[in-house]
């Protein structure tokens, strides 16, 4: 599903590469943690998978597509097969939970009728039934992140990327979000999560890939934070 082959990424003006000759394969339906200290290069992996940045060297294959050779006008369509969740939620403050999720559908050309059918369903799935018409500022952090997850998942993407999704949440709420991601993973969606929340990693007991200074130092099938 995801294949990094000898990927090196050096940002302009950086003294050393963020990722240094990294090779890793992730199968369909896997749940993978990327862990490591700040600046270790784990967020760069998310950016590479979204094609927000291009690798300096090596090959990135997502969903059988070689992202490195993808034409720029094809990138939007490519991104529709990937859902994404961030630490800061990235919701639109002037739109309700329903509208936030529907917006993601409408801007890729889905009709309002489709949105009316699909959005309540996915909001129900993330546990926000009854709160569709609240604005982000009327929701708790955990609830806001649920809206973000609903938005990422509403297109039924093959891959869900999560960049420190619990970074702004308290431990209990974090665990609820993890349960949600676990549920989404069980529908067959590949989940890639970048985190340095040791608590969560230890509880989930999923594959852990540890990165330090741009290199993979550990890849463990049912790992802990260590």
């Amino acid at each position: 599903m995801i294949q990094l082959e000898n990927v090196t990424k050096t940002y302009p003006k950086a003294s050393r590469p963020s990722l240094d000759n990294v090779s890793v394969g992730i199968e369909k339906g896997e749940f993978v943690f990327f862990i490591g200290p700040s600046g270790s290069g784990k967020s760069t992996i998310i950016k590479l998978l979204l094609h927000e940045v291009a690798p300096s060297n090596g090959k990135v294959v997502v969903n059988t597509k070689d992202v490195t050779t993808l034409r720029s006008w094809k990138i939007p369509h490519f991104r529709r097969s990937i859902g994404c969740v961030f630490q800061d939620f990235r919701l639109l403050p002037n739109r309700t939970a329903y509208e936030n999720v529907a917006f993601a559908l409408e801007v890729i050309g889905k009709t309002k009728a489709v949105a009316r059918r699909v959005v309540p369903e996915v909001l129900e799935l993330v546990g926000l039934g009854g709160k569709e018409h609240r604005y982000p500022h009327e929701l708790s952090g955990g609830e806001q992140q649920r809206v973000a997850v609903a938005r990422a998942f509403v297109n039924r993407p093959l891959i869900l990327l999560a960049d420190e999704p619990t970074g702004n949440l308290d431990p209990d709420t974090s665990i609820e979000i993890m349960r949600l991601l676990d549920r989404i993973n069980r529908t067959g969606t590949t989940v890639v999560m970048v985190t340095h929340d040791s608590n969560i990693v230890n509880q989930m007991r999923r594959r852990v890939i540890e990165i330090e200074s741009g290199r993979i130092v550990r890849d463990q099938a049912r790992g802990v934070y260590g």
Partner: protein
Amino acid sequence: MRLKYVLNEVLVGLWRNVTMTVAMIITMSVSLTMLGASVLLYMQVDQMKNFYYGEIEVSIFLRDDVTEPQRAAIDQAIAANPLVESKQYESKQQAFDKFQVIWRDSPDFIKSVTPDSLPESFRVKLKDPEQYATFADQMRSMQGIQDIVDQRELLKKVFDIFNSIQVMALVVAGVMALAALLLVGNTIQVAAYSKRREVAVMKLVGASNWFIQAPFVLEAVAAGLIGSILGFVFLFVSKVALLDGRLQALTNVLTPIPNGNVWLMLPLLAGVGALVSAVTAWVTLRFYLRV
């Protein structure tokens, strides 16, 4: 639905920053008015050249003491010259008759002039009025010629004035266009900034580039079109008020500007206004909405 969304975004966008929108429209319309005026002037000068150059002639004035053989030689030389289309001899008496008609309002002046005091002349029409210099050089060496006068020289001064007005209008149009472009660029930047969250989400979920950019580009195009319509109205009103009204006398001397030409400016201004705004907006977005 998508069309409705895009149109709605355009309206909201124009309204969000209404002072900037107005500034953009005004500069755009002034610039386009100047452009329209200079194009009209250009067409006008062209038309006047065709009109007057068909009429003008070269006058070869003969000396008072010209002899019969000299006059015959000149006559023959003109007839034999391949540049000449037609010629006409004007005697002292004929010149005096014409003189009396032209100055009929000043009888005292006419009294002071006798047929003898006016020179006889050949009025020559050239096939191509531009060939005047060549023709004059060929004739000048002949005996008995006092002076060779090209009426075109007089018109040239008039056309020079027109040309400089036209250049001035173009310069103003260019400067205003630059200001308009900067305003368009700025408006688009402000719009992109105020919608940065939406744009970020749209990119994230894979909205196509044209869908993200269309509202911004159309916003600029709408302003450009409104500006061009205003510019056209300016142009039309000033044509009616000035040339058909206050400056009527001038219009009689010059050839009239046909209304058709003025109407022609509408699609021209609209096209230039819309295209320039669209390109500016699109280029600005390339810098501010990296996809």
